[in-house]
């Protein structure tokens, strides 16, 4: 097979898909690291973000790119609200209770999307977009934006976590909550901030999934398992690990059809996860052992 064909039809789609996974996995890894539970409503929150952007597009007739920030803010408030109304009361309970609660939230969010927007398959813009040709690499503009946006969002988040006071507080909570509390970190504010960031990341991953394919009420739920695989692959609690994990899962899924039948493509995320866990139980970048 010619090298360019491999790049165009296997590698590039894998990177685009991986970027979408990465945005979701970064959010999951934050919840995992700071709040210490597996957030099963993550996919459906992403669906809500994607449909919120669609709502903005259809009501105001603006470009989907304008709608993205609106959806991000909306999802940030949704995430904070869900935490205040539901998760917050369970924070002193075993974490498995919160995990079950997030499963219930997933069902509720999905029902909400189906009632408000219906169940039809939707797109932000009608018609098809043929890829541009850049020195032999065939890629659509929206795919370039997806990759750039992923790195930009994660980059900003990384700087925030490293340089700002609140970012440091979040990292402290992630590393050692008892010590963080003793050193005067405000637990409630850190939790709120975490949910706001998680909501923004959810909206972004849902939006980019929607703009690259279609919007369906189950779109986020079906992405949940690969996103979790990416999180663990990269090492729990590691933002840069989630990016690496997401990209690996995306690329492996897309290139796997070269070796195995197409119907087993969906199993690839887990096959590689099991392999990594056997060799490095803490993930690629050293994450937490929960």
């Amino acid at each position, binding site marked *: 097979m010619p090298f360019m064909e491999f790049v165009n039809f296997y590698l590039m789609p894998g990177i685009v898909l991986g970027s979408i996974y990465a945005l979701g996995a970064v959010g999951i890894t934050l919840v995992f690291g700071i709040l210490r539970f597996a957030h099963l409503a993550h996919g459906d929150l992403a669906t809500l973000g994607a449909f919120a952007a669609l709502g903005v597009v259809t009501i105001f007739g603006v470009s989907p790119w304008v709608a993205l920030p609106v959806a991000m803010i909306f999802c940030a408030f949704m995430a904070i609200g869900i935490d205040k109304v539901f998760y917050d009361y369970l924070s002193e309970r075993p974490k498995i209770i919160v995990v079950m609660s997030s499963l219930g939230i997933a069902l509720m969010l999905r029902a909400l999307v189906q009632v408000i927007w219906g169940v039809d*398959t939707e797109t932000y813009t009608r018609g098809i977009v043929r890829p541009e040709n850049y020195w032999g690499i065939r890629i659509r503009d929206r795919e370039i934006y997806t990759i750039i946006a992923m790195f930009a969002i994660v980059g900003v988040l990384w700087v925030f976590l490293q340089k700002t006071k609140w970012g440091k507080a979040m990292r402290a909570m992630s590393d050692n909550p008892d010590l963080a509390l003793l050193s005067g970190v405000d637990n409630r504010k850190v939790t709120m901030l975490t949910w706001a960031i998680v909501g923004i990341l959810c909206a972004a991953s849902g939006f980019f999934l929607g703009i690259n394919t279609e919007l369906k009420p189950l779109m986020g739920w079906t992405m949940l398992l690969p996103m979790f695989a990416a999180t663990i692959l990269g090492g729990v609690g590691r933002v840069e690990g989630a990016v690496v994990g997401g990209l690996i899962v995306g690329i492996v899924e897309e290139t796997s059809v070269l070796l195995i039948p197409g119907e087993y493509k969906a199993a690839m995320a887990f096959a590689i996860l099991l392999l990594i866990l056997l060799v490095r139980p803490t993930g690629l970048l050293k994450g937490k052992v929960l």
Partner: protein
Amino acid sequence: MLKKIALAAGLFSATALASNAAQADVKIGLLGGISGPIAAMAPPMLVSSKLAIQQVNEQGGILGGQKIVTVVGDSACNPQNGVDAATKLVNIEQVVGLIGPHCSGSVLAVANSVTVPAGIALITPSGTSPEITGLEDKGLVFRTVPSDDFQGRSLARTLLELGTKKVAVAYLNNDYGSGLANSFKAEFEANGGEIAGYSAHEDGKASYRSNLAELSRGGADTLVIFDYGDGTGLTILRQALENGFFTNYVGADGMKSDAIIRELGTENLTTFVTSSPVGEKSDSLAVFNKAYIAAGGNPDAIFVTSSYDAAFLMALALEKAGGDAAKVSESIVAVSNGQGEAILPGEWKKAVELIAAGKDIDYKGAAGDLNFDRAGDVPGSYGLFKVDGDTFALQQTLN
């Protein structure tokens, strides 16, 4: 002890909630995959079934002026919820006939553990699995959609006649997709065609470009897609068109979806055709389309014709059986066996008069003539449709 509590609680909640349901004259259950993987397909199918019932009620009702009331149940496209919903419809709502479930796995489970033991007739508008043919159903299970086998074979023969000798096949890995793909492949190769790529895919992934690249490496310029046009089929067709993997695209009835035209645009679909069931020598489809558009629906939605037929047939059979649930299944065969005066979709009044006069009637459905065989299956007759304006137009009939 716990069992008793559970039982008592179940009884209590059921009585409390069901007792205020409206007292209906004749109840028919509509069981669909409303939540779950085919959520996008279910609502138009249910609306279509309801249209048939509405026409019956508007044209004088059933059994001497009674009204038919529909009760909707959700199978969520899995056997667990399907059996649960069917049990409620049959036992609590006391329906006399069941339209659905939509997914084959639910049809098998519901027929085996609810409707056949309870002696209730079931017509599924979209369960295409060949396993339904072999059900030990005491003649109580019917379907208005042909088994995948018929369609796959007639599509294969037609493509060969049209001069397409080499194709690649992408199919959804469920009963619908794999059933069609298997029969298509067998017939296509037996008649000298070449399958240059043959691959199943899972539902709901974001990218299928590598699958498509793999398929196109076989050198075929026609891609046959056995999938749903408002689900993964749309994603596949979009990504294939955008990247120019193939020049011609062929779908089956699942791809004859308004979502394809709406989302991809007519101008991009000049090389796209789909096969879909159509009656042989009747205007049934046109009559149905007109009525369905008038009711605010889009007749290009998937399985709406077979859903309409299932409901209308059920009503005809009930009328013929005089409301006796035990006679419904033989009546379903009797009102659509190819003998007697032709009844088109919506001709309820005429049918009632003929039945009252003791004459035979033969329902000519929107999705085909519906002459049931012993297993409750219908042989399909198909047409090839192309995109014309914002709708699908019949290009030619298949044999």
